[in-house]
């Protein structure tokens, strides 16, 4: 589904991504781990088109996507999240959902079209929100949500967009254990509905709980890949994690 070949990116002489190749098959949940500065987020940015890579090819659903605009890549079914999920703070929860709906996407270009979304679309959105226990919050601004609600909204939005591939950027950062389990459940349930995942995180416990397969990065390169349990057991990976962040390695 996603095929990344030999992607490179450097800022002013620093090789942030130094020849990375990875692939994600349909229906998989793939992890991507690495310490700070390993190049995970840079790689994410290149894949999603937010940053133009220096070299390499990226294919998504058999289309060459490097060089496409990030909006076009998103519209083709690859949706990413951000490390700090703030949503659209001064838009209601429902509006946040609508912006991601397919129906709006097609009507956006018509300046005056569809001033009010039809009932069916709203009902659709509310149904998804209900699944995340957000339906009672549909009419309040996202900035007034609690942090866990915000996290849930992120998944609700993703369901609204019906992406084929979701790239999650550190979904477990700053999340309490109860919520984390909740998250894991939602990721699996989405996967069962046909969404493929590529998950970046530090948190090895989280990664091993949800990801079947994992890539480990260091210094802009992939240093290990394979089944998650093997990668986590890889001596190189352990050395890196213990060397830099004992707390996280223990987690």
């Amino acid at each position: 589904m996603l095929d990344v070949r030999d992607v490179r990116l450097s800022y002013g002489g620093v090789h942030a991504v130094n020849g990375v190749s990875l692939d994600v098959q349909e229906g998989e949940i793939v992890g991507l781990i690495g310490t700070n500065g390993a190049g995970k987020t840079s790689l994410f940015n290149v894949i999603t088109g937010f940053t133009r890579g220096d070299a390499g090819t990226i294919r998504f659903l058999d289309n060459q996507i490097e060089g496409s605009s990030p909006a076009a890549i998103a519209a083709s079914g690859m949706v990413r999240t951000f490390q700090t999920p703030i949503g659209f703070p001064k838009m209601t929860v429902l509006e946040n959902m609508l912006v991601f709906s397919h129906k709006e996407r097609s009507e956006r270009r018509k300046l005056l079209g569809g001033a009010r979304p039809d009932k069916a679309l709203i009902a659709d959105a509310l149904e998804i929100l209900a699944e995340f226990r957000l339906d009672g919050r549909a009419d309040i601004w996202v900035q007034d949500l609690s942090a866990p609600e915000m996290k849930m909204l992120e998944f609700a939005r993703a369901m609204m967009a019906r992406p084929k591939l979701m790239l999650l950027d550190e979904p477990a950062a700053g999340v309490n254990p109860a919520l984390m389990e909740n998250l894991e459940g939602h990721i699996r349930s989405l996967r069962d509905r046909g969404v493929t995942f590529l998950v970046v995180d530090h948190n090895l416990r989280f990664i091993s709980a949800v990801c079947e397969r994992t890539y480990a990065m260091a210094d802009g390169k992939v240093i290990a890949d394979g089944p998650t349990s093997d990668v986590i057991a890889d001596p190189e990976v352990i050395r890196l994690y213990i060397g830099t962040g004992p707390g996280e390695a223990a987690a």
Partner: protein
Amino acid sequence: MDIIYFGLISASVLLLSSVGFALIVQVEGFLNIAHGQMLLMGGYTGLWLTNIGVPLAPAAVLAAVITGLLGMAMYGLLFRPIKAKGALVMLFTSVGAAYVINGVIGAIAGARMQGYDLPPVRAMLLFGEPFMTRYELAIVIVALLSALGLHLFMSGTRSGKSIRAVADNEALARARGIDPRSTSYLVWFVASALGGLAGVFLGVMGSLTLAMGWQQIILILATTVLGGLGSLYGVMLASFVLAFGIEFGLLAVQPAYRSALAFSIIIIVLLIRPQGLQSLWVRAARTH
């Protein structure tokens, strides 16, 4: 050769007017439209002082100090209480402050043009050619000194470092034992005083009218943005780019378009360098 002198004078005027504004952008993070009226305040205070018999140099210093105090008062009364409300609210509060200052000065001083009562001077000669007048030379020196002084102050002194710390991260600065409030007062004093000094120079070199503050703030905004918002070095470079750009541009364009020329330079530079001139040495922030 003339063109170099003209450019240097124009650049110095721009620099002295803008540097205080840029300082406030850097520390407070908003565009203080009332800075133009600080020039007006300085100009008229200096005029009033010289009219009651104070010699020019002390009058200029005193006017700068008085304007600096006004800036502190403005910060304490108007801006500090609304700091949390965001840049747009602060910007328009400063527009309100600009109206108030302009209106009060207008009511006291009247709308007629006024000028400093000084004997006219000729440009001094350099290699037998007219160079610049002593007032022009003074503003060039003062502008360069103030820029250099600010640079040394910001990078070499404790207060300067604390100003930078507050600008970078107020909470962190507080944790390190820096009192952001007294730092802010200091910034407002310095910035406004420099504005006031620029106003005195503008008055000495030309004349004073109530419109001066509004005319200057447009140029100040332009210079500061051209430099890259809030960057002191950017604003220094921008003053020179703008001033010399206009002087050389006038070789090709009718002088009627002088101000349009200034704006064209800004448009062109920002199209090439969307983050202003500071982006020549500050690496652009990464996407998102």
